[in-house]
C-alpha cells in the first residue's frame, strides 16, 4: 500500500466540468469587441520560387482593408533551436502555402477577398521534394545562408549543403562488432509525413496597444517560449520581454503541433502593424495541414550484427529525415531520434547517422513521439525479421537484448531504473503470445505482433518549470503554473500532487491555463516531461508552503515544528493527538496571540525545477560525453489482428500496452493516454499519410481525404498495463508517458501482418490496398521509394 490519499487515485479532472458544460473558452471563443481586425494570409502557390515583385495596389483599394504587410515590413528570422525561419517570406518562398504577406481588414470576408487581389510575381525554381534529391552533389541549395544561421551548440549544420543538422553517434567499435557477429541483417524502411489533426486549428490574436505593450492570445503549448521568441524576433521594434504577454486559453489539442512558434508569430507581428487594434489570425483546416509543423518523413537504412544465439553485437542505423523548408524545431527531432535510434536494446557497438535534410515541403516539427515512432517502425520490424531468420521467438529475442538499469546508453550515460522485462512478460502473457488462433472464416488470417518502445524527453538541458501556490481564506488553493493543459490531464495531476503534500482535496484546488504576466516560467509543454518537471516544481511549492505553515504555527503556538503534519485541511501534531488547527483559521489571516496581535500572513509557496545534471555538450563526432536525456520511459506492446485476405482490411480484436510510468498518479488519466495514443498511432500505420503532388503541393489537406479514426475504428479491446519502477527524481516516482502510447503502434501492426500472411511491408502506411496488392505479388507505385544515393554510404567507414 502506498499510503497516499490523493496520489494514485482516479480523481475527476479539475477541468472536466468547464469542458463538459461548454463553458471552456478556446482561442476563437474569446471576444475582442468591435475593433477586432482579421488577417488573411497571401500564400505561395509554388514550392520553390524567387519573389520578383509584390503589387498590393488593387487589394488596398478594397473598402475595409486596413493594412497589407509583406516580408519588407518584417525582415526578421527566428526559430526555437535554429534561426532559419522568416515571419514572412523574404526573397524566396520554400514551400507551397508559405506566408508571403497578410491583408488586415475589418471583416474576415473582406480580408479574404482582398488577399486574392495581391499580385505576386515569381520566378519559379525547381523544387527539391525528397531527401535523395536534396543530398545529391548538384542539388539546389534551399538555404544558401545556412552557415550563418544562429543555432544551439548541439546542432551541426553542414554549410553549402542541404544538411541542416547531422547527429552522429559512435559507441564501441563497429568493425569489431560486425566481426563478432555471425550474421549481418540489412534493410531499408520508409515513413511518410503525418499531420497532428488537433480538432481545433491554430489561432492567435495580437494586440499592440498605444503604450507599445504586446499581448498575444494563442492556442498554445508554449506560452513562455512564444513570449521569448516574439520578444527576440521583434526586438528591432524596441520590444522587451516585459512588454510581451502571452495568454493561453483552453487549447483544443496539441500533440506537439502547437509547441514552439509557428503561425502565432503572425498575430504578434501583424499587431505591431495596426497599433491599437486587436488582430486575429485563425487557420483554416487546410492551413492547419500545410502551414504548421508536420511530422517528418524518414528513410531508415539499418544493419544489424547478430550472433547465432541472438545476441546483438552491432547496429548501424542511418536516418535521412525529410525536414522540410525550415527546421528550427524539426532538427531537434532528428537529434533526439539519433541519440536513441537503437531502441531499448543493449547494443555494445553503435553507429548512428541522423541527418536533417532541407526539402521544399512544409516545415517538419514536433509530433507526439518526436522521431521515435518513425525509427521504431523500421527497427522493430527488422527485429522480427532477424528473429525469423535465426528461428528465435521474437519476444525471447527482444527480451535477451532488452536494456536494463545501469546499462550503457548510446551517449555513454547509464540507463535509469526500468521495468522493461516486467512489461515484456506481462504484455506477452496478456496477448497470449505463442498461442495461435485460427479464424473460422477462411477469408480471415489472424496474426499477432509484438514490439518494444522507449522514449526520453527531448529538451534543452536547462528546460525549467516553476510554480506558485496561493492559499485562499477557506484553505482552498490556486496553483499558478505555465505548463499547458492540452488534454493530458496535467492540471488535475498538479492538484493531486499539491493536495497530497498539503492535505487538501484536489477538488478544493484550482489550476488554470496560464498568462505569462501572472504565472511563473515554464519552458514548454512537450516531451512528456510536464508531469515529471512541473510536477516536481509544484511539489516543491507545496513543500515550501507547508514549511511556512509549520513555521508560523510553531512561532505562534510555541510547539515543536518537527511534530507537525497536515491532514484533512488541518494542522496536526504527532506528539499531541488532540491538537488540530484548521488551516482555514490562519493561512491568510495568521494566528492571533493572547495580546491580540497576529503571527503569520498569506501563505504563498514557490517551487522550481531544473534537471541540473543534464548537459547537451558532447563530442560532435561520437555524441559521447554529456547527459542529453534526463531519463527513458520504456515499455512493450502487442496486438492481435484479423486480415481479410481478399481486401486486406484489418480489424483489431485486442491491443495491449505495458509501460513503466514510474508511479501511476491518476489511473484514469493514464489509461486515457493509452486509448488515445494507441488509436492515433494505429491510424498512422493503417491509413493516414500526407500526399504531395509532383510540384510539392499537399493533396489531402482536409478530413475527407486525410482520414483520421472515428469511433467505428476503435479496437475491440485495449488493455493498459502499468509497471512501477520509481523514477528517483520524479514526483512520487513518476515519469512521462504521454507520447509513448503512440510509438509502438506501427511495428506491432507490421509484425502482426507478417505473422498472419508472411509478407513484410517496409513502408508506411500499411493500407488495406497495399496488403491486398502485396498478396497478389504487386506493389503500390508510392511504396517503392528511391533509396539514398550510394555516396552516402561512404560515411559508414
Amino acid at each position: 500500500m502506498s499510503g497516499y490519499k490523493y496520489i494514485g487515485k482516479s480523481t475527476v479532472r479539475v477541468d472536466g466540468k468547464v469542458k463538459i458544460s461548454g463553458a471552456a473558452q478556446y482561442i476563437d471563443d474569446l471576444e475582442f469587441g468591435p475593433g477586432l481586425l482579421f488577417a488573411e494570409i497571401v500564400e505561395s502557390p509554388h514550392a520553390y520560387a524567387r519573389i520578383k515583385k509584390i503589387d498590393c495596389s488593387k487589394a488596398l483599394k478594397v473598402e475595409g482593408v486596413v493594412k497589407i504587410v509583406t516580408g519588407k515590413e518584417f525582415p526578421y528570422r527566428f526559430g526555437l533551436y535554429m534561426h532559419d525561419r522568416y515571419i514572412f517570406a523574404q526573397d524566396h518562398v520554400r514551400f507551397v502555402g508559405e506566408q508571403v504577406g497578410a491583408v488586415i481588414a475589418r471583416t474576415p470576408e473582406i480580408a479574404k477577398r482582398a488577399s486574392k487581389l495581391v499580385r505576386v510575381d515569381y520566378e519559379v525554381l525547381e523544387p527539391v521534394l525528397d531527401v535523395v534529391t536534396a543530398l545529391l552533389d548538384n542539388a539546389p541549395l534551399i538555404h544558401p545562408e545556412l552557415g550563418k544561421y544562429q543555432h544551439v551548440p548541439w546542432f551541426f549544420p553542414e554549410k553549402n549543403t542541404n544538411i541542416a543538422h547531422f547527429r552522429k553517434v559512435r559507441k564501441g567499435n563497429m568493425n569489431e562488432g560486425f566481426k563478432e557477429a555471425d550474421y549481418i541483417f540489412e534493410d531499408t524502411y520508409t515513413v511518410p509525413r503525418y499531420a497532428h489533426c488537433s480538432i481545433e486549428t491554430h489561432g492567435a490574436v495580437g494586440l499592440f496597444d498605444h503604450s507599445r505593450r504586446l499581448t498575444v492570445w494563442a492556442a498554445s503549448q508554449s506560452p513562455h517560449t512564444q513570449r521569448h521568441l516574439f520578444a527576440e524576433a521583434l526586438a528591432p521594434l524596441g520590444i522587451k520581454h516585459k512588454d510581451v504577454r502571452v495568454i493561453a486559453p483552453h487549447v483544443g489539442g496539441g500533440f506537439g503541433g502547437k509547441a514552439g512558434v509557428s503561425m502565432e508569430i503572425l498575430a504578434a507581428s501583424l499587431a505591431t502593424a495596426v497599433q491599437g487594434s486587436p488582430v486575429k489570425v485563425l487557420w483554416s483546416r487546410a492551413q492547419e495541414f500545410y502551414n504548421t509543423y508536420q511530422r517528418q518523413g524518414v528513410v531508415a537504412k539499418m544493419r544489424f550484427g547478430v550472433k547465432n544465439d541472438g545476441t546483438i553485437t552491432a547496429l548501424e542505423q542511418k536516418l535521412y529525415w525529410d525536414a522540410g523548408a525550415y527546421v528550427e524545431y524539426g532538427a531537434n527531432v532528428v537529434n533526439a531520434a539519433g541519440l536513441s535510434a537503437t531502441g531499448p536494446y543493449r547494443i555494445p557497438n553503435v553507429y548512428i547517422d541522423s541527418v536533417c535534410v532541407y526539402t521544399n515541403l512544409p516545415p517538419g516539427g514536433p509530433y507526439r513521439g518526436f522521431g521515435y515512432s518513425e525509427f521504431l517502425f523500421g527497427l522493430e520490424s527488422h527485429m522480427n525479421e532477424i528473429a525469423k531468420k535465426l528461428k528465435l521467438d521474437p519476444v525471447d529475442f527482444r527480451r535477451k537484448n532488452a536494456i536494463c538499469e545501469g546499462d550503457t546508453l548510446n551517449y555513454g550515460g547509464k540507463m535509469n531504473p526500468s521495468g522493461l522485462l516486467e512489461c515484456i512478460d506481462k504484455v506477452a502473457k496478456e496477448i497470449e503470445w505463442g498461442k495461435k488462433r485460427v479464424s473460422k472464416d477462411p477469408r480471415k488470417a489472424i496474426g499477432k505482433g509484438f514490439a518494444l518502445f522507449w522514449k526520453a524527453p527531448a529538451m534543452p538541458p536547462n528546460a525549467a518549470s516553476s510554480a506558485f501556490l496561493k492559499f485562499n481564506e477557506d484553505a482552498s488553493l490556486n496553483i499558478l503554473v505555465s505548463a499547458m493543459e492540452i488534454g493530458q490531464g496535467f492540471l488535475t495531476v498538479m492538484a493531486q500532487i499539491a493536495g497530497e503534500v498539503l492535505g487538501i482535496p484536489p477538488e478544493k484546488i484550482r489550476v488554470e491555463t496560464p498568462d505569462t504576466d501572472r504565472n511563473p516560467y515554464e519552458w514548454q509543454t512537450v516531451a512528456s516531461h510536464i508531469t515529471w518537471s512541473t510536477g516536481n516544481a509544484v511539489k516543491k511549492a507545496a513543500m515550501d508552503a507547508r514549511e511556512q505553515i509549520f513555521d508560523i504555527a510553531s512561532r505562534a503556538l510555541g510547539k515543536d515544528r518537527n511534530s507537525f503534519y497536515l491532514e484533512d485541511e488541518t494542522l496536526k501534531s504527532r506528539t499531541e493527538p488532540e491538537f488540530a488547527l484548521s488551516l482555514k483559521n490562519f493561512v491568510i489571516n495568521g494566528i492571533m496571540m493572547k495580546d491580540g496581535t497576529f503571527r503569520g500572513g498569506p501563505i504563498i509557496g514557490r517551487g522550481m525545477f531544473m534537471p541540473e545534471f543534464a548537459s547537451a555538450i558532447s563530442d560532435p563526432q561520437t555524441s559521447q560525453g554529456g547527459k542529453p536525456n534526463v531519463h527513458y520511459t520504456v515499455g512493450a506492446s502487442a496486438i492481435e489482428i484479423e486480415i481479410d485476405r481478399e481486401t486486406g482490411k484489418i480489424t483489431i480484436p485486442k491491443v495491449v500496452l505495458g509501460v513503466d510510468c514510474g508511479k501511476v498518479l491518476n489511473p484514469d488519466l493514464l489509461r486515457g493516454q493509452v486509448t488515445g495514443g494507441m488509436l492515433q498511432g494505429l491510424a498512422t500505420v493503417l491509413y493516414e499519410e500526407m500526399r504531395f503532388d509532383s510540384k510539392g503541393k499537399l493533396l489531402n489537406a482536409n478530413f475527407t481525404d486525410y482520414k483520421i479514426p472515428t469511433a467505428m475504428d476503435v479496437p475491440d479491446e485495449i488493455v493498459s498495463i502499468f509497471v512501477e519502477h520509481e523514477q528517483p527524481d520524479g514526483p512520487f516516482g513518476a515519469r512521462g508517458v504521454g507520447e509513448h502510447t503512440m510509438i509502438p503502434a506501427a511495428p506491432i501492426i507490421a509484425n502482426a501482418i507478417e505473422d498472419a500472411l508472411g509478407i513484410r511491408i517496409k513502408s508506411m502506411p500499411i493500407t488495406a490496398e497495399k496488403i491486398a496488392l502485396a498478396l497478389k505479388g504487386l506493389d503500390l507505385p508510392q511504396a517503392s521509394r528511391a533509396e539514398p544515393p550510394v555516396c552516402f554510404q561512404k560515411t559508414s567507414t
Partner: protein
Amino acid sequence: MEKSISFLLNGEKRTVEVSPSEGLLGMLRDKIGVKSPKCGCDRGDCGTCSVMIDGRVVRSCLVLAIEVDGAALTTLEGLLENGDLNPLQKAFLNKNAFQCGFCAPGMIMSATELLKRNSQPTRDEIKEGLAGNLCRCTGYTPIIDAVLDLVSEQKKDRKQ
C-alpha cells in the same frame, strides 16, 4: 440584402437579421454569442459544430442561417438541467471521458440524440451513433464507456 428570421434557441425566442449566404454556425457564434458549437473543419467532416434542429443533430457549418426560420434549436447550453450538468454530462465527467474538450459539445449533442432515439444502445450502436464526431485525444473508448455506464445505471434505476 438581410432578412429577419425567428427561431427558438434553447427555448427562448430569438429574432435576427441574416444575409442569404450566412451560415448557421457563424450566426450562432458571432451574432448571438453561443460559443459551444466549434468550427473544426468548416466542411462537415468533424462534427464539432453539431447542434440540434427540431431534435435532430446537424452540422451547423453546413446549414444556412436562413433555413432555421421557425425552427427550434438546441445547443449544449440548452442541455443543462437547473443550471448544472445533466445525467449524461455527469457520466462523462465521472469517467474523465474528454481530454482537450474541444469536441465535447458536438459529441454530447450526438450522444444525446442517440439516447433519445435508442435508450438502450449496444456498444456498436454507440460507436455508430458517435461516428460523425471526430476526437483526436481520447481514442473514443472513455466516451463510449461513459455512455454505456449511463445506460446501465438507468437500467438499474428502472428495475428498482
